[in-house]
């Protein structure tokens, strides 16, 4: 039994040793894990300040070992701007859901992107307001039933879903904009690579970066975790295509 033991997988240093409050099958945990791994791998722990949203990730600061602040609903990009401008060498990211970012916080995200200052946004698109119980979000698909669109979203009553990544990519400010999915191992690996580019866009001072993550909400979708992953592939991806929508020169 003289076999040499080697650590092949461990908890990131950036990850606090805590059990999260997220529902089974929710991909917030995956997104959190990717953030923690990248902060470790890129040596950012000591200079990171996270700005947490109002929504399911409101307690995000409980789960990481770097500095954090908790923003008002939708205001994370403004708060991140205030933090970044005081210490431009620090690494500042916001973590926001679709109600937070694409509804109440639309002005803040658009202007943060337009200013183009190097802050990073991790945007969780799960098509509904998770924490408040599954109400319609700006990203809710047409026909999708939610607690405030009980017969399904219709354009006549509720308008159309907003493709945030494509919209922000029209601006000159952003250095990196991508949409990824957290539905499968292969897509999670791609998500990490996109997040790395987004982090790099900030670290290298190139500009604003955002990664939109297609995510599950099994509790409010009333699906099993596996069915939720399938729904992302079958229903969500056709409307919210994956890809890089803006890659400025120098982003690696």
């Amino acid at each position, binding site marked *: 039994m003289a076999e040499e033991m080697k650590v092949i997988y461990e908890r990131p240093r950036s990850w606090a040793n805590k059990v999260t409050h997220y529902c089974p099958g929710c991909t917030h945990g995956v997104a959190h894990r990717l953030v923690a791994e990248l902060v470790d791998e890129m040596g950012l722990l000591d200079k990171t300040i996270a700005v947490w949203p109002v929504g399911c990730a409101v307690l995000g600061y409980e789960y990481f070992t770097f500095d954090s602040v908790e923003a*008002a609903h939708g205001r994370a990009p403004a708060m991140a701007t205030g933090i*970044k401008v005081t210490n431009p060498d620090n690494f500042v990211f916001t973590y926001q859901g679709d109600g937070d970012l694409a509804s109440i916080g639309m002005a803040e995200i658009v*202007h943060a992107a337009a200013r183009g200052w190097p802050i990073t946004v991790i945007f969780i698109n799960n098509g509904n307001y998770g924490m408040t119980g599954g109400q319609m979000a700006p990203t809710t698909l047409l026909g999708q039933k939610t607690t405030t669109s009980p017969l399904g979203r219709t354009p006549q009553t509720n308008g159309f879903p907003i493709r945030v990544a494509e919209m922000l990519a029209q601006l000159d400010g952003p250095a990196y904009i991508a949409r990824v999915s957290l539905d499968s191992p292969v897509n999670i690996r791609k998500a990490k690579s996109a997040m790395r580019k987004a982090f790099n866009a900030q670290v290298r001072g190139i500009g604003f970066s955002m990664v939109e993550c297609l995510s599950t909400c099994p509790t409010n979708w009333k699906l099993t975790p596996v069915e939720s992953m399938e729904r992302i592939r079958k229903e969500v991806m056709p409307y919210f295509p994956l890809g890089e929508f803006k890659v400025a020169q120098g982003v690696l």
Partner: protein
Amino acid sequence: MSDKVLMKGAEALAEGAIQAGCRFYFGYPITPQNETPEYMSRRLPEVGGRFVQAESEVASINMVYGAACAGVRVMTSSSSPGISLMQEGISYISGSNVPCVVMNAMRGGPGLGNIAPAQADYFQAVKGGGNGDYKRIVLAPSSIQEGVDLFVDAFELADKYRMVVMVIVDGLIGQMMEPVEFKTKVDVSTLKTPEWATVGRHGRDHANVITSLTLDAAGLEKWNLKLQAKYAQVERSESRIEEYQMDDADYAIIAYGTMARIAKTTVRVARAKGIKLGLLRPITVWPFPAKQLQAYAPKLKGALTVELAYRQLFEDVQLALCGKIPLGWFGRGGGVVPGPQEILAAFEEQFGKGR
């Protein structure tokens, strides 16, 4: 700068903030205070600071919140409708115990109102405005010089108590020009980054977290009690008042800011007529100088509250003096500013000839 210079109020106050160590300003245009952000946009880069024009007052105050979390001296300014939009942020900043300074150049309301001088945001400033049980220290200068001096106190009080300090003026103070002297210059290199600031761990053995969220009711009550204890300490220690011609006064006018400045003339006019009138001018409207007012009650035959609003300041005067001496009130609204004679006429109508 140590000699007197002639400056416009809104610019002098901005320079006063810079001399007080303010290096970060976030704001959005609104009349009658645009000269403040304009001045900041020119001056802050010269002193190594940063000016950011935000997309809205909502964003301004949340940028202030972010910078405040980093433990720097930071401010915003606006006027009434813009300050209304900031109430959410002011509540969050108060609930998270971080310091900042907010200046309100109050204008006529409600709604879009107008851009003329008013004091109708008194309740919003001293009683609440945003959600939850919180207080701000509210300083009410009545001249440009006093405003400049008070900015030093504003930032010191904000840091000392980790509170929002609001400086309330109006378009009259903002738009006029007066000679002003910058007596205190804070050396920002001597300001230490507070230990609670979210500036990255940089070797610190723990993460700093700034939040106004406490899900547990007992925990949030405990937090509220801590805030209340702090506010009680501020009430005991920080209330200020100016007493003008009060030594032999039979009657007092109670007024603050621009209104007090005009009321000083009323006092002089009344005294020329043989009426022993004085002025009690709250410099802090929160904490309200109730004790100082009460100390005068045994000597006074009555007091007239004068304000550019409808019975807002008067409510605090009533809380302090009701049942102790006869109280009168006079105010104009909508941006109308009464002159000294009009105030005297109101006094004589309510208190006779003051003899």
